[in-house]
């Protein structure tokens, strides 16, 4: 996802924002910057103009390894037939409390 243009383009960073203490960082979008410090500054200016966050992460986009869409079944189907991982799988009498 890096530039094919004139060679002046800054590297791409992915931006993650913690919207408030107690919540996890969530992906917000991406930003170009020449170094990580500038990426933080640019992410602040572009993604948090209205108090959207209390903490920012910026990660070089090239550092992210993503699963391929075609691997979805291989990765996630095995969980599909393990219904016994869910509490509703178990038969217990209705009149027993705190279960």
């Amino acid at each position, binding site marked *: *996802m*890096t*530039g*094919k*243009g*004139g060679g*002046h*383009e*800054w590297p*791409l960073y992915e931006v993650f924002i913690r919207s408030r203490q107690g919540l996890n960082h969530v992906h917000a*979008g*991406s*930003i*170009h910057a*020449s*170094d990580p410090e*500038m990426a933080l500054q640019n992410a602040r*200016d*572009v993604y948090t*103009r*209205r108090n959207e966050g209390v903490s920012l992460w910026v990660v070089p986009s090239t550092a992210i390894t*993503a699963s*391929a*869409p*075609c691997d*979805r*079944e291989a990765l996630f189907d095995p969980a599909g037939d393990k219904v016994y991982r869910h509490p509703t799988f178990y038969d217990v009498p209705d009149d027993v409390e705190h279960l």
Partner: protein
Amino acid sequence: MSEKPVAGTVPDEKEAAALEAAFDAHVAANGKVEPRDWMPEAYRKTLIRQISQHAHSEVIGMQPEGNWITRAPSLRRKAVLLAKVQDEAGHGLYLYAAAETLGVSRDEMEDALIEGRAKYSSIFNYPTLTWADIGAIGWLVDSAAIVNQLALCRCSYGPYARAMIRICKEESFHQRQGFEIMMALCNGSGEQKRMAQDAMDRWWWPVVMMFGPPDANSPNSAQSMKWRIKHKSNDELRQAFIDQTVPQAEKLGLAIPDPDLKWNEARGHYDIGEIDWEEFFNVVRGNGQCNEQRIERRRAARDEGLWVCDAALAYGEKQRARKRREAA
């Protein structure tokens, strides 16, 4: 959407037809498409064109409003206008980032704009002659943009839809500050009221044209609606804008420069007069009042800023080299 190839593998003809059928069914059921999913090449190209044009519009849109930052009538208005123009820059960046997920680079998009291969909204080729134009842009242009963008929040392409949701949340202040400027002028002196009416007279028709050619004459619309990139047609969006804006103009006491405008009881909508599409296509072709000036300023900003981009890259590289040496 099962059985998609990893990006980069080329399916044969039969596989491609099956992939396309699965894709069509997926979007028809309001399924979302994410960057690494398989998508028809024409879908990708359509989105790159539409999202980059949208981004260019946000960026070029800073110029007519920026024209009045130093001349805003009060510190409050100046702070608001600065924040609004900064938002437009931000909106441009959200959109460029969304387009980049489709495999086009920022530099390629910027070059296409500056070399005249990419379009942007024609509305920004009109000049901002008075302070009332800043009110008219916020109220009318941003109202129109919101009508258009609300429909795009449901776009099938995930990154575009998410950018639209963010942008719509922020646009609401743009529209309201514009209406407030118009209200202040309309409640002011006779000269101020005339200034507001003059802005209305000049901006109304170009804003009505912002939604694009009528459905019958909009070749890409049908396919975009089939792909759920668009959920509403140009004419539907235009009608929604007119219906919501006429009562607002009445509230301000401003006349709409259309003698044929009238409520149609049977349709439950306002009817409007003939739109001058010749003017629209003339501005699209580059012959508007400000086309050259807008692009020239973009070109200058890019060319004069190149040394800054290069210096920052060199500084970043130096910092990384220093870290490597220290680690060694």
